[in-house]
Each structure stands twice: as C-alpha cells, then as structure tokens.
C-alpha cells in the first residue's frame, strides 16, 4: 500500500478531538532506545544499519498495536512522501533526510509512529490529540515493554537507556505538546511565559519559522532533561506546566476581549479579509492569518465554522500537502499563487466575523 493511501485523509485527521484541543493541539511522548552490541546509527556503516533494522522492524510490526500498520524503508519513500510525514508531525526533519537502512512503522490512524535508525536505533512516539500527555506516556510505556521482551536494549543500571546523544540518556523520554497561544502573543505575555517555563528545565519554542519567530503562534513545550528523574515525574511536571499555560492563555483571551476587544476584532477581521481575498500568499503569512482566524473561531466570531477546517487549512497550505492537493510539483513562487487560490476557494462559504456575541469559548 502506498503511503498516500494509508495516511488518514487530512480532514479526518483534523477532526480528531481531545481535551482542551482549542489550545493544546496535540500531545506526544517519545522514547529513545538502542540495541546492545550495535553501533549507533550515526556511526554505523550501512550494512550495520541494515542489520539493526532487519532485527527491529519485524518485531515492531508484530506488535498488536501495529496491526494493519504501514512500514517502509526510507529509500522507498519519495521526497514528497517524506515531507508529507514531516508536515503531519510524524517524523523528524532529520529522519526525512535519511534513506536506506532507516525506516518507519506507522500505526493505523497514526497514533503510534516508530522511527528506526534515526539518531537512535529506535525512536518510538505516541501521539494523542489535545492535552493527553499521561495517556501518551502510558501507551508508549506499554509498547516499549512489549518490545523489550524481544529486543536486547543497551542499558546500564547507572546511566539507564544508552542513547547516541548524552542529552537523551537515562529515560530517553521526550514529552511534548503543541500549543496554539495567540492570546499570550497578542497580550505580549509570551516572553515572560517562555522565560519562566525555561527555569523549570523545560523548553518552549516556536514550532514553525526560523530563529525567534513563532509562525502561526504555535509553540512546543518539552522536557530537556532525561536523567535522574522517573518518567512519571517528568510527565507530571510537564502536565502541570501545561495546565498552567492553558489557564494563562484562556485568561489572556478573556482579558483581551475585556480591554482590547476592538484591537482583537481588527486583527481577526483583517485576517479574514486577507485570507479570503488574497491572490498571492506565502506560507508564512498564511500561517499567521489562519492562526488569527482560528482565534476568531475560539472567540465565537464564526459560530458556524468548525475549528477543524482551520486546522486542516493550516496543514494543507504547507508545501507537500499543497503539491499533493494540486497533483503536480510546484516552484516556490507558483506555490504562493496556488495557496491563495486554495484559501479563497475554501473560505468562500465562510461568513464574515460576527462580533456581537464574542466570548471566550472553553
């Protein structure tokens, strides 16, 4: 089966719901594991990597959780396929750059994704919509325990699970959540939040864009330390911080409506004007404007518009999805035209923002 026919259609993937998913788009827990007696993928020669993959792949595929899964070696995927996986947040950009001797196993409905021979032999991830870091951990813990029965992991009782990079040593865990925080950005509180969260040993960064910019007001919160604490402790620490960020974002939205409603309506109204009328739009601008429209949905300015539509458009305007949608490879400047056409067409039936009944929807 081809990757394209396996992946859930985008509208379907965007309709999945979870707790607090207006603000927390998704939760993820990833574990890094390696095989004893094998060089790490970055140092291994291709035959070594192939041997490690041949050991790992059938065992991962035989997990009950992976019934009906999609599995492929990276050299069986086209660059466009790989980019599609990156845009769906299923594999890292680093993994997309790999070819023979590396692979993926992806569960039905994409809630589990195992990267083989990324930086470590195994990078297994559990993904859940909304705020569900505890559930994501429970699921991947189970998968890991099942794999461990059949794979001999590199483990030291002092240092825990041994990883290629010492920053992942010990538990090999990275707990993260993707957050949409336009309220904190508009209310100019985001830098304060980033600083205070950093002090707790967690990282907050923009998920899209270069340097300090956070396109589409989307941020990722994740743990940086993996050694010296239990997994449960790390998960709890992040879960608590996420609850707090969630609360501050809701409060920021409420405060904006109380004190700067006109400014907020102005932003959202202009975003509506641009997205539904532009003929040339870069992905950068589209992401930022769609973020504001999404805020508009959350503030009840578009009562009839499902949030899933904006979530879908946010992914659809990205390079690989756009090309898949059009069916041909596009040059960057042509992309900006096609993107604008697509947005105009999809927003044709979207009514103008109604500010009369604005309130912060929970």
């Amino acid at each position: 089966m081809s990757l394209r026919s396996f992946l859930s259609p985008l509208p379907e993937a965007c309709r999945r719901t979870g707790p607090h998913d207006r603000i927390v788009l998704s939760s993820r827990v990833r574990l890094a594991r390696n095989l004893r007696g094998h060089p790490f993928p970055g140092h291994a020669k291709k035959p070594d990597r192939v041997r490690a993959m041949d050991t790992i792949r059938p065992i991962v595929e035989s997990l009950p959780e992976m019934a009906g899964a999609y599995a492929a070696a990276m050299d069986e995927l086209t660059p466009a396929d790989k980019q599609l996986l990156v845009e769906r947040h299923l594999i890292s950009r680093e993994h997309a750059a790999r070819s023979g001797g590396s692979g993926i196993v992806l569960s039905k409905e994409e809630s589990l994704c195992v990267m083989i021979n990324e930086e470590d032999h195994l990078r297994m991830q559990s993904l859940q919509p909304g705020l569900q870091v505890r559930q994501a951990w429970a699921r991947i813990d189970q998968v890991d325990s099942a794999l461990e029965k059949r794979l001999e992991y590199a483990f030291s009782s002092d240092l825990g699970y041994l990883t290629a990079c010492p920053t992942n040593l010990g538990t090999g865990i990275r707990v993260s959540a993707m957050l949409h925080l336009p309220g904190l950005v508009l209310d100019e509180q985001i830098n304060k939040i980033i600083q205070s969260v950093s002090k707790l040993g967690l990282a907050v960064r923009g998920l899209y864009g270069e340097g300090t910019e956070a396109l589409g007001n989307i941020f990722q919160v994740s743990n940086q330390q993996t050694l010296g604490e239990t997994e449960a402790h790390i998960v709890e620490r992040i879960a608590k911080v996420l609850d707090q960020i969630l609360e501050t974002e809701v409060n920021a939205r409420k405060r904006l409506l109380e004190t700067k409603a006109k400014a907020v309506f102005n932003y959202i109204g202009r975003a509506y004007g641009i997205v539904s009328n532009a003929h040339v739009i870069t992905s950068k601008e589209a992401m930022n404007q769609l973020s504001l429209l999404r805020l508009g949905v959350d503030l009840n300015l578009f009562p009839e518009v499902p949030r899933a539509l904006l979530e879908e458009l946010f992914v659809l305007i990205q390079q690989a999805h756009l090309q898949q949608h059009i069916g041909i490879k596009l040059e960057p400047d042509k992309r900006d035209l096609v993107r604008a056409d697509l947005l105009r067409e999809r927003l044709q039936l979207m009514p103008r923002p109604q500010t009369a009944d604005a309130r912060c929807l929970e």
Partner: protein
Amino acid sequence: MLCNACKQNEATVHLTQIAGDDMKKVDLCEACSKEKHATDPENFAFADVLLGLGAAQEVEQVGPESRCPACGYSQPDFKKTGRFGCPECYTTFAEGLEALLKSMHKGTRHNGKLPVALQPPRDASTKLKQLQKRLDKAVLDEDYETAAALRDEIRQVRGQLGDVAA
C-alpha cells in the same frame, strides 16, 4: 561576533537558554545553525550545541589517542558530533562524563524505568509489602519484639532487592 562552532563566519543566530540560575549563550553562523538543527525545534537540543563547544572539553581527560574498543570512536569524533559511536562508548569515555551529565540533567544516575530482567522479582516486592503490613500492626499492638524481628527481615529483603537493581 564570530560563530562559536566554526570560529570562521559571522554569527547571525543567537540562542539563550535559562535553566534555573544558569544562563547559557551560543552564537552561531547560518551554516552551523543549520547543521546543528538550531532552527528545527523537533530536533534541536540546546545542550547539543554546547556539547560541541565547551562541555565536551570536560571529557577530554581520556586523551585524544584512546578509541572505543567496540566501535573505534575517538574523543575528537565525540567533540565533533556531540554523539557517541556505540553503547560501549559510555564505558570507554566514562571518565569526565559525570561533569558533562551534571550540566545537562537533573541527576547523574538513572532513576526511571528498568528492563524486566533487572526489575526486583515480584514475589520479593509482594513479600516486602506483607512484611511492612505486619510491622505496622505489630507497632500498633505495641508488640516490639515481633516488630524488631520484622524490621530485620524487611532490611534483609530490601538488601536482596538492592542487589538485583544495582
């Protein structure tokens, strides 16, 4: 300002991380920031960049000549990539590793999940729970003779479990 990594090009990417009271700064040029995935939040770990810079120096005590007997990896290799070559490298380059780990993590010893083979046998931990219950009851009943015996027994079982885990 020159790039901290290649020390050749002008640094245009400036990163700051504050963890606790500790502030770390890194200045990179365009090329090095790409190479280190500084613009890729999915993959970039601040410590990775630091690793290639100051932190890796601390592991240097091993001497540049020593190589990992399992994979042939050397100290300069580690300095260059910030990654080890194989699981065995953690033993080969163990000296000086602690300081590096201390700068990155909450602790320097694993405190999390254990592979099943290393977990304390279930019957032992069940036994421990039962003993603890009996001890609590003995204390409640002020039967100190029994309590003392139980305490010794608990200590003994704990000792066995500790052996398994260590």
